[in-house]
């Protein structure tokens, strides 16, 4: 090695003189005497086989950023992928706050020295509560899928029942997470959606519900972008048989769509990623779970729940853990599921986002998406051979485009869009039988009319047909 391993900027005591002094204090003659408890047979008697240290920050920067240069971003291209991870505008203040050293490098301090962390997450809970029109929101879970899985397990414990009905029309990744998380404790029954309407059918639902069902889980908007017009009826059916109704939703649409609690949901869950998180190749997800302030459900949360209180100083607020004894931190395997690191920073960021947006911002966000999506759907359905499924229904930002009559596969079309710097919609072939040749497109407030027109124009070229 060119450098001895001393004086590393990240390891202040990696200096011979300092090591010497500390070894003397500890009573050993060198650091090699540490780890004497590790038996010889378990020791690695060689160096790890890995590339040499890049000691200068500049070379490290150049190496890693050189690798990153191979990526093509959604800012450099026009992106129409959504499907659970959404490209929304991230206000500069969201990044300003979540990159603050104080909170970025913090973890799990106590209510006194980390007063601010508690306040940040309490405010997040409170702001989400308003958006959802509910009373209790957890410190974020891993992602929306975990939130759904946990909501189902909460229903299991609250009802003592071991079966859950899950609508098919959700992100396939999410179903996989739910399945794994609920296996073997519960039976997961999938309620198919009708291909022609994109909705689940109430009669089919009725057949699956019963005294053994802990919960029904469905989403609105659904994975295909459709709004569940029969949500209220579905909730009533659940309640009639003593099951809980769990609704997954996209918080970005709640300025224009009714809050699921008002459709009859007992538990509402979803992902906070749309509320101020960059996509990060999927790394921006964070889950929320919300209920009313009903002790029966509150005691089933595995998550931390921060509560507000008063302090010994008049007019001052304090914060702390509500009902800590529920958690695995307090009671190991007797706690509710488990708790630990999840996605707190994204919760804090969502709080900043909602504070900036206010009611009007959320309403306008939804409205712009409604217009953009409707415009895009109309525009694309004018391209010869292309149709938009469920065009007569409401969708806020996602919709299904059917290319099956164009003579080209979704893969071929997306390849040609890519070469025009457009990321086309997600191929639904293989995800759901009967949806071959279809793709899920997403537009949000980041898309301009020009962006959408560019997509339509590119499709006309690719498909060799003029738009009508």
């Amino acid at each position, binding site marked *: 090695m060119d450098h001895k391993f001393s004086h590393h900027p990240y390891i202040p005591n990696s200096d011979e003189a300092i090591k010497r002094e500390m070894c003397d204090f500890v009573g050993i003659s060198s650091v090699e005497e540490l780890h*004497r408890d590790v038996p010889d047979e378990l020791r690695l008697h060689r160096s790890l086989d890995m590339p040499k240290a*890049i000691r200068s920050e500049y070379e490290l*920067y150049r190496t890693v950023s050189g*690798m990153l240069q191979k990526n093509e971003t959604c800012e450099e291209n026009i992106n129409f992928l959504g499907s659970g991870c959404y490209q929304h505008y991230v206000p500069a203040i969201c990044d300003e706050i979540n990159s603050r050293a104080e909170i970025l490098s913090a973890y799990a301090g106590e209510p006194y020295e980390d*007063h601010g962390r508690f306040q940040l997450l309490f405010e997040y809970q409170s702001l989400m*509560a308003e958006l959802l029109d509910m009373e209790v929101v957890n410190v974020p879970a891993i992602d929306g899928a975990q939130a759904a899985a946990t909501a189902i397990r909460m229903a299991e414990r609250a009802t003592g029942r071991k079966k859950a009905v899950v609508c098919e029309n959700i992100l396939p990744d999410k179903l996989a997470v739910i399945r794994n998380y609920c296996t073997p404790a519960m039976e997961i029954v999938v309620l198919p959606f009708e291909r022609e309407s994109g909705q689940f059918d109430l009669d089919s639902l009725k057949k699956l519900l019963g005294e053994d069902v802990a919960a029904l889980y469905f989403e609105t908007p659904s994975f295909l972008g459709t709004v569940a017009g029969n949500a209220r009826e579905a909730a009533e059916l659940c309640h009639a048989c003593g099951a809980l109704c769990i609704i997954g939703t996209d918080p970005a649409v709640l300025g224009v769509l009714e809050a699921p609690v008002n459709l009859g949901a007992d538990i509402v869950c979803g992902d906070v990623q749309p509320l101020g998180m960059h996509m990060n190749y999927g790394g921006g*997800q964070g889950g929320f779970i919300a209920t009313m302030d009903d002790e029966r459900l509150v005691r089933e949360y595995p998550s931390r729940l921060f509560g507000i209180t008063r302090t010994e100083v008049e007019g001052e607020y304090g914060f702390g853990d509500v009902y800590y004894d529920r958690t695995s931190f307090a009671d190991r395997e007797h706690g509710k599921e488990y708790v630990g690191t999840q996605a707190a920073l994204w919760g804090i960021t969502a709080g900043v986002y909602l*504070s900036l947006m206010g009611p009007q911002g959320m309403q306008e966000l939804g409205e712009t998406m409604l217009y953009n999506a409707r415009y895009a759907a109309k525009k694309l359905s004018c391209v010869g051979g292309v149709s938009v499924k469920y065009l007569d229904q409401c969708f806020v930002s996602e919709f299904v485009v059917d290319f099956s009559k164009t003579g080209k596969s979704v893969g071929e079309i997306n390849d040609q869009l890519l070469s025009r710097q457009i990321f086309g919609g997600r191929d639904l072939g293989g995800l759901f039988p009967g949806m071959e040749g279809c793709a899920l497109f997403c537009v949000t407030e980041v898309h301009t009319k020009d962006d959408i027109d560019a997509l339509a124009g590119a499709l006309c070229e690719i498909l060799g047909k003029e738009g009508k």
Partner: protein
Amino acid sequence: WNEPIIFELHNPGHRGIEVPLASEALKKEAGDVYATIPQGMRRQKAPALPCVSQARVLRHFLRITQEVIGADLNVEIGQGTCTMKYSPKINERLARSPKMSELHPLQDERSVQGILEIMYKTDLLLREICGMDRVSFQPQSGSQALMTMASLIRAKVEHDGKGEQKDEIITTLFSHPSAAASAIVKGFKVRTVGPREDGYPDFEQLKALVNERTAGFICANPEDTGLYNGEIKKFTELVHSVGGYCAYDQANANGLFGITRARDAGFDMCFFNLHKSFSTPHGCGGPGTGAVGVSKDFADFLPAPVVDFDGEKYFLNDELPHSIGKVRVYQGTPQVVLKAYAWMRALGAEGLYEVAKIASLNNNYLYKRILELRGTSVPFDSGEQRVEQARYSFQKLFDETGVSTEDVQRRMCDFGLHYWTSHHPYVVPQPFTLEPTEFTSKEDIDEYADAIAQIVEEAYTNPEIVKSAPHNSSAHRNDESPFDDPKQWAISWRSYQKKFED
């Protein structure tokens, strides 16, 4: 600051940010979108979010962040087991590049070769560190990694045709609570091995618990005591002998880089918290990554996809025939993987070895300094070195002065320092858990130990000052009565308004 709750800043005339509106031309072509919304599905009552001007929102959150003390701001020793280390700003800068942040997880693989390369190469580096054959980055945290390992064991014993028979997981008392709790989630019964008097997990207890029902064994080593169990291979061999599998909680591997590897001690799988030992920041509790490494027998069981390389390009490999499915949507938190990659590259093999040595040296230095103080002790003591952390006890201080470990905790706030007791239930009486890492300097350790020393001195001379703390923190003592009382607890501002403001 005594910054109000954001709702108290509401003024209906204020606005924080504006959203792009659809142009008139577009609206005209789109038509009446509200008419498409089904009956009763349109939001009736606007969410009661506060209206606050942009600068005031910023001021609010900036001020609150100043009331948090992250590892960047303080002598970060007091959150034992958390492995709080320096997260280099260069790594954050790289991770916040649009070339990372503006990627959609479903993009064509050709357009994300950079991040796939980084994930693949990080996998290779971690394989070398733990000796396993394949790594998944899907779990976002250590607890989720523990749940993933429990899921892998379940899938494997079922694949072995022993799903009915093998329904117990054994863990140790000083392992993380989630090791036990996540096994329960996955439908196992949990058996717990306690420590011997000298602090090591009791092999005799394990022998008594291991049988044909044993599906798996999950433990940390060192556990929260910081003691390295040199007989660990005996443990894994015993479990293997009945067809069980062994999973290693290496959330905190900080003291062992380049010293010893999980696979070599007989483990079938392990996980690392990239947000601990690999320095990616904690972010107040996530997102992180619990990277799960497995032996080749388990490779096909991992959550899909994993990143592979065909000699020309990197790709997402979904062909895992026995996959447990997914534990996290998409590919986990790739920006965290990137930071861990950059950190490892800055250190190389010798640097990682130095990390282990210095983390250990720092801990043993601190250990000696703490034990020199009156009122301190270390129960479950073998007299051996600690690796990277230790759990101490103030039982003696409490007996002699009435000052409890919680009192000391509150008093430490006055010094701008963290001090963590222990997970519950307390095994060590009046516990506290300290963990310096390699980024802690000798000066830092001395500053921390001096603060404890001063509080010990106060406890013996003026205990009231300790008991009535904090005196000088960003908040004063809470009225804790509402937290466990459903009638009083308030988990949102609207609940607080309802319960207290009427």
